[in-house]
């Protein structure tokens, strides 16, 4: 064990860093794109089936296939980090869009009606009432997306984007369990930590929203 760490410690640190960056960047992009999209479809109900349908279909594409399919794309595709981030972002979109949509449409009808009836503009209703009340559900979507991204990012190594998947692929190729674990254990730890921290924040927000 100790011997393994002296041999691979530095590399583990490097790949963990890469892995974390892949996840953080793609989740950030997915939030920036997905939250407004989720809000938009609460205002344009006719679009909701299309947007959610598209995000759903992306989610059903096997992850290895999605990485492969993106490689030949001009500009966005190719081998390396950029393609991996694109794939991870696409995967993260569904839970984020869906929970934003569900969170906002789930706000009590009486509350929304009271706001409109008192003369709030749609923007005021959205920013002062709907988003604050939907925040914990929205964050739940981000949490799910993050946990999925940590797992799927291990496949990024297959298209040369680095990350903890490097150990796993190498370990599988040479049938070395220690190498597989060197990738899998930190990835699992990262997923658990992300889940725990975001769940904590979610609960904070729920209490802040005055809902018990």
């Amino acid at each position, binding site marked *: 064990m100790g011997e393994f760490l002296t041999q691979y410690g530095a590399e583990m640190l490097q790949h963990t860093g890469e892995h974390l960056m892949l996840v953080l960047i793609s989740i950030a992009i997915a939030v920036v794109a997905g939250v407004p999209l989720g809000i938009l479809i609460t205002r344009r109900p006719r679009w909701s089936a299309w947007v959610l349908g598209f995000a759903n279909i992306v989610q059903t594409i096997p992850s290895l296939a999605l990485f492969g399919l993106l490689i030949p794309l001009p500009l966005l595709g190719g081998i390396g980090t950029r393609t991996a981030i694109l794939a991870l972002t696409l995967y993260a979109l569904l839970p984020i869009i869906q929970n934003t949509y569900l969170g906002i449409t789930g706000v*009590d009808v*009486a*509350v929304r*009606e*009271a*706001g*409109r*009836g*008192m*003369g*709030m*503009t749609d923007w*005021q209703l959205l920013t*002062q*009432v709907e988003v*604050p*009340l939907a925040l914990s559900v929205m964050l739940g979507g981000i949490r799910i997306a993050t946990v999925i991204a940590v797992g799927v990012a291990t496949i990024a190594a297959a298209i040369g984007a680095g990350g903890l998947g490097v150990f796993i692929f190498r370990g599988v190729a040479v049938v070395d369990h220690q190498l597989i674990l060197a990738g899998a254990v930190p990835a699992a730890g990262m997923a658990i930590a992300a889940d725990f921290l975001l769940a904590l924040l979610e609960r904070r927000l729920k209490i*802040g*929203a*005055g*809902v*018990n």
Partner: protein
Amino acid sequence: MKEGQSKISQVYLLPMPHAIEFHSVTHTLEGRDLVTQLSFTVQPGETLVLLGRSGCGKSTTLKLVNGLLLPSSGEILIAGQSTTQWDLIALRRQIGYVIQDVGLFPHFTVARNVGLVPSLLGWAAGKIQARVYELLETVGLNPAQFAQRYPHQLSGGQRQRVGVARALAADPPFLLMDEPFGALDPITRQELQQEFLQLQQRLQKTIVFVTHDVQEALLLGTQIGLMQVGELVSLCTPPEFLASTAAETQTFLEGFRRMAALSNTLYQGQPHG
């Protein structure tokens, strides 16, 4: 710009000859008439109680007043101007709205809930706070004790008081109340009804009040409009309503008379002295 200015000036043109006028108003949703050919007038300072069973179109009528719904045909005039002409945001800010499920914002404190419309209107923070405290006193809640609480920390009756305070916040000339006391226990309901009467005597708002409780209608209304499957079947004062022999009125009065008779019997059964 000019249009905007004229809209603001209309705020101060109240009261007009008729505060609220419905002219043959029909509202249709997905081919079904929710209300049909409604015509009535509410004078400034009057309380029109719309009485009827669930689903008879009472709440729809209220939402037509503040433009949450627009008429499919006919016309609604508020202070002489059609709801299709009003800037609806401006209109709603001078119509207090109290609904059955209260609709208090669960993430706002009591103070912030009550101060909502004033803050939408851009009042200064100090003025809002003074107004909020004044209103909490008005509805019988100690401001020092309640201002910083959240709605989930209040009882049903207290929430309803906050709902009333919120509706009164910007001193609107109109009030719409949709079964505001419906979910309360009978004693709290009576308290709030009495306070409503005292408040109305002082404030002289133009009110449309929705209920399915005939007793409440007789107590609070200056006019009672009886609604049945989307139509206004009778419109009269409480004494006229009590004296009416029309079949629709009788259905509602039957229960009321039975209660009166019961209490009479029970009372006479008691030994005197």
